[in-house]
């Protein structure tokens, strides 16, 4: 068996293969659902209904998609430059910590000043966290995959330490949680009485901003050049290390916004279970979007729908909600395979 590069990529294939791949991933999950004794069709129906079957469900899906857009953008930006940032989780918590430190009464400012300030500071915190592995990569040649992964564990322990120490809410009944952010720091709800908040708007705006940077700015061009071939980029006079450093600032900052928006928009305070793996899921989101910034928004909504729908389904049909994670992981693997097959042709001989 060998691969042969395709001369052209017909649009039909580019659309058809990913659709087939997602269908196969669904088929695999349907088989798993059958193992539980439930009927796959009714389970998928319940997932769809739980994700988009009512106004409430739709808003829940968009709320869940918000942090995933940020972490998905963070992964997409970094992966474009072949900076393997697997540390979205750590950067997310860095942004959340910054929001909890500055937003819980330390800075008594009006909303119009405080919220932009929190955004900038959260982004700085996340950027700083990713800058360490990036510096180690460019200066010492230390593989950033392992260091960003290890930093996730260090960060969550650091947050745990803060929540049992300086950031602990004295009136929190002993729970490891921070104080609530002051009302000036709370992101407004988009619709009265719904959980969907202004963070979603910021997330979509961030996607457009990243798209503009990617398409229209010199930095976007340099990032793609470095990702495509660092040696060639270097020959062309692109300062590879500086481009990687800038990529890290952008990527880390974006992931941190997920933490900011979850604290200031949804939860109100910092807890240890703020993120059920949004950082890791962001990688899946970015790959499903083929690293396209606007595609990230769609992919994040899709992944969020699977999670929200599976939660609702699990409550009524009794199939473990972990099926959502299986579905997302299977979609990732089948999707990258499908994309590869649009570029190469398989030859069996």
């Amino acid at each position, binding site marked *: *068996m*060998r*691969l042969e590069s395709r001369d052209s990529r017909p649009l039909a294939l580019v659309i058809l293969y990913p659709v087939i791949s997602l269908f196969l991933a669904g088929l695999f999950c349907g088989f*798993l659902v059958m*193992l*539980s004794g439930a009927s796959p069709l009714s389970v998928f129906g319940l997932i769809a209904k739980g994700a988009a079957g009512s106004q409430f469900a739709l808003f829940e899906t968009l709320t869940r998609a918000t942090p995933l857009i940020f972490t998905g953008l963070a992964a997409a930006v970094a*992966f474009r430059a072949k900076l*393997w940032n*697997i540390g979205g989780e750590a950067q997310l918590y860095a942004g959340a910590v910054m929001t909890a430190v500055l937003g819980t009464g330390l800075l008594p400012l009006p909303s119009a000043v405080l919220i932009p300030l929190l955004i900038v500071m959260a982004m700085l915190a996340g950027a700083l966290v990713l800058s360490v592995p990036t510096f*180690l990569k460019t200066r*010492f*040649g*230390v*593989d950033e*995959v*392992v*260091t960003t*992964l*290890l*930093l*996730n*564990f*260090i960060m969550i*322990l*650091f947050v*745990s*330490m803060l929540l*049992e*120490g300086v950031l602990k809410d004295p009136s929190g009944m002993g729970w490891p949680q921070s104080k609530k952010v002051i009302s000036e720091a709370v992101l407004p709800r988009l619709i009265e009485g719904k959980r969907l908040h202004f963070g979603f708007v910021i997330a979509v705006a961030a996607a457009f901003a990243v798209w503009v940077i990617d398409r229209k700015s010199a930095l976007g061009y340099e990032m793609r050049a470095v990702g495509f071939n660092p040696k060639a980029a270097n020959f062309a006079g692109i300062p590879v290390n500086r481009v990687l450093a800038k990529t890290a600032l952008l990527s880390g900052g974006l992931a941190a916004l997920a933490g900011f928006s979850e604290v200031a928009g949804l939860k109100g305070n910092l807890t240890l279970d703020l993120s059920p793996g949004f950082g*890791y899921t962001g*990688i*899946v989101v970015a*790959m499903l979007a083929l690293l396209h910034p606007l595609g990230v928004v769609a992919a994040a909504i899709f992944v969020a729908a699977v999670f929200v729908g599976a939660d609702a389904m699990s409550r009524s049909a*009794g199939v*473990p909600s*972990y*099926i959502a*994670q*299986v579905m*997302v*992981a*299977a979609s*990732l*693997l089948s999707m*990258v*395979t499908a994309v*590869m097959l649009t570029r190469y042709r398989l030859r069996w001989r």
Partner: protein
Amino acid sequence: MEAVEIIFTASLWAAAIRIASPLIFATLGELICERAGVLNLGIEGIMTVGAFSGWLTVYVGGDLWLGVAVAAATGALFGLLHAILVVPLGLSQHVTGIGITLLATSLSYYTYRLVLPEVTSPPKIEPFQSWSVPFLSDIPVIGEALFRQTPLTYLAFACVALVAWFLYRTPMGLAVRTVGENPMAVEAQGIDVNRIRIGAVMAGSALMGVGGSFLTLSAFNSFFFEMINGRGWICIALVVFGSWRPGKALLGAVLFGAFDAYQLRLQQLAGGVVPYQLFLMLPFIMSIIALIVMSRRAAYPRALMVPYRKGER
């Protein structure tokens, strides 16, 4: 003073070996994969599925050794999936590896909930008991540290010797090493590069599965969510630290185990004055520092992460 005395106690070193055992298996596994030119970031998930499938086998009435075998087999199965995707199909090893970890982990959790829908405290099994080697276990300090372990620990040490012998003393081992350095040279010998790589990734992943099963069948007696807790990623650091050599990897794993056992004891000594999270961070920080120190001398297999396509330069 007490903090220094701990270092010379046999119990510290016994604990060090115990903590190192799963890491030895998994580090050897990753080492074989990387020697053949394939980065396997599926390690964290493959350890999880090994821990789970080994435990499940024993829980439903299987023998402990059957549990180990099942863990190896499921590990190899996920290794095969990773290998098919990254070797003949040449997909990104980073992305595929993360995907394998997500898939293996979520499948383990899904199946766990399927088998035990309502359980809140994980059911226990009867794990491997420690087995004292006759005579050797009576040697002061060393005997207690080394020769009063469970059979799986002895197997881990045996695997180090076995893998070293295989890599450096057999034609197949030479082929594995060359495939990771210069696949074209292997092709010129008439050996199928992809077949060697797939085999190496499967064998390595089987070892990762066994490493995971050590946690459920020897170190603890049940399966918890998130029980691998970054051990897989630490093993990737240990491979670099060990310069892709089985013996040095063993040394790294034992040093790491000693360090981890030491911080656990220091934690008790510190008695709540220093936040315990700082101690728990140390192993991860140590791994990063080890990577920085070794980075100057790191001699990555030259074809690591480079897909091989016949006839392409």
